[in-house]
């Protein structure tokens, strides 16, 4: 019964000559926030893409809830409970925020071969979507077109969509990327609200955010995880400081 929610075993990914993921082992426990930190180009996004199915690993194995999902398509993984947010915002630009989140709700609510009833009158779906918008604080902008809101708001929309899928595990790829300090604080607040409730694999550059949110932490360098531990221990680990955190945290 003590099996982790997500378990990655000996994952490898090569792009031609570039080794982007190198003998990577990782596990995320139920209800925990696990952060992955690492310098630019370390292979963090590549890792997330392999977990969510956009990229096929060169070799290795991914188990989710004790099931081998390595061969699953992106859509099937999403339906199994893996929700991803993108480092580079990826939403349906010409649609409203509400319509975007409704698509996320709909995707996790059975098949969509329904040709007749209008979703605009589906109050259950609208309510569920509004709930996610409230969670990230976008409910007052529900009817704005995604292309017309600010960058920070679109980042929040990303997270709202991932939440609306009702996932078992959230894969968040730098949710604070490109945000101002106020928006970052807001996002940290949103994520801490989820803590304990949802398992999260969090990729983040902002160390303060990581230290306040994560239960445990892995350090990724050149596609390989060089250390995994509790936040406290990583902070005091001199190898890690040298490899990644640099002088300011030493």
């Amino acid at each position, binding site marked *: 019964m003590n099996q982790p929610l997500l378990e990655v075993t000996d994952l490898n990914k090569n792009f031609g000559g570039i080794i982007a993921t190198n003998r990577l082992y990782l596990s995320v426990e139920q209800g925990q926030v696990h952060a992955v930190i690492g310098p630019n180009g370390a292979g963090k996004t590549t890792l997330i893409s392999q977990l*969510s*199915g*956009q990229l096929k690993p060169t070799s290795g194995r991914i188990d989710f809830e004790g099931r081998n999902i390595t061969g699953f*398509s*992106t*859509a*099937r993984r*999403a*339906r199994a409970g893996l*929700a*991803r947010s*993108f480092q580079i915002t*990826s*939403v*349906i*630009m*010409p*649609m*409203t925020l509400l*319509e975007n989140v*409704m*698509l*996320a709700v*709909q*995707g*996790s609510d059975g098949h*969509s*071969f*329904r*040709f*007749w*009833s*209008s*979703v*605009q009158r589906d109050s259950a779906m609208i309510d569920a979507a509004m709930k996610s918008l409230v969670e990230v604080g976008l409910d007052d902008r529900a009817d704005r077109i995604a292309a017309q809101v600010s960058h920070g708001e679109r980042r929040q929309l990303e997270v709202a*969509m991932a939440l609306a*899928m009702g996932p078992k595990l959230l894969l968040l790829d730098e949710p604070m990327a490109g945000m101002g300090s106020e928006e970052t604080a807001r996002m940290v607040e949103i994520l801490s609200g989820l803590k304990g409730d949802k398992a999260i694999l969090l990729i983040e550059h902002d160390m303060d955010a990581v230290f306040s949110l994560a239960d445990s932490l892995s350090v990724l360098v050149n596609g390989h995880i060089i250390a995994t531990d509790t936040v406290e221990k990583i902070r005091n680990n001199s190898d890690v400081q040298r490899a990644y955190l640099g002088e300011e945290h030493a």
Partner: protein
Amino acid sequence: MRILPKTVSAGVYTGFLALLAIAPWIFSVIDEPFYLDLLSRGLILAIAALSLNLILGYGGMVSLGHAAYLGIGAYCVGIPAYYDFYNGWLHLGLTVLVSGLFALVTGAICLRTKGVYFIMITLAFSQMVYFTFVSLEEYGGDDGLVIYLRSEFPTWLSMESPVALYYWIFTVLLITLFFIHRLVHARFGRVIVGSRFNEDRMQSLGYSTYRYRLTCYVISGVICGIAGMLLGNFTSFISPEMMGWTRSGELIFMVVIGGAGTLFGPLVGTAAFVFLEEFLSYITIYWHLIFGLMLIALVLFGKGGIHGWLSAFDRKEKRG
């Protein structure tokens, strides 16, 4: 995104449909039966354009082979008629079956590709059908086939007289409009529209987009096949020419000039097309050239085609 036009444009379209409903009466009063012919043909093309709009406008699947379904539908009337089978249900059933199957098989392949490749491969498949019929000497090959009698239906559904055929076409048009309206607002349609803008994102939301897009492609093909079945009955002479790639291009013109991805856009676009074709070809033999220039102008300067202009009017109205 607003799909069903409101206010000014809704008024215009309702009036337009009402006019279509009484058109045969008007033409008989002014004694111009030729116009009924023109309108019947226009409405058949409109149904075809509506079906293309479903994949092109809503789904972002730019098919340059849609006229193949017009041909398939027409030959599903012509070939049975050649063997003296005139049963209308047989024609209709055959049309649905053959166009659906053709869309399923070719769509399964086309939808593996994107962008220009998609355009080219849809074109290739339609040319395949074209040349197949050209080579079928038994059914007239290049010269085509004459259909001596229209599809036979029970009296209340008969399409014998020109007016009865017109109402057949008009009814199919109304059903198509209503069906597409429901479909694009239903769950299925939202997946189609979402996939047009960001297919990767839709997949990561849990949608196996390929299946939905393929289903949409088949629905579109079947509707266009039915338009072809009506066309076969209307022209009573069918030939491979009606599924040539120029006809496919014209269908794209109708969709784009009217306003792709809007419910009534293709209808307006078809009206514009038929009007231009009729009157420009009267003035100059280079009317296709004028079409081309208009299309380029529209792509460069226009926003959302004729429907776009109409709904810009709506927006002004709201502010004022």
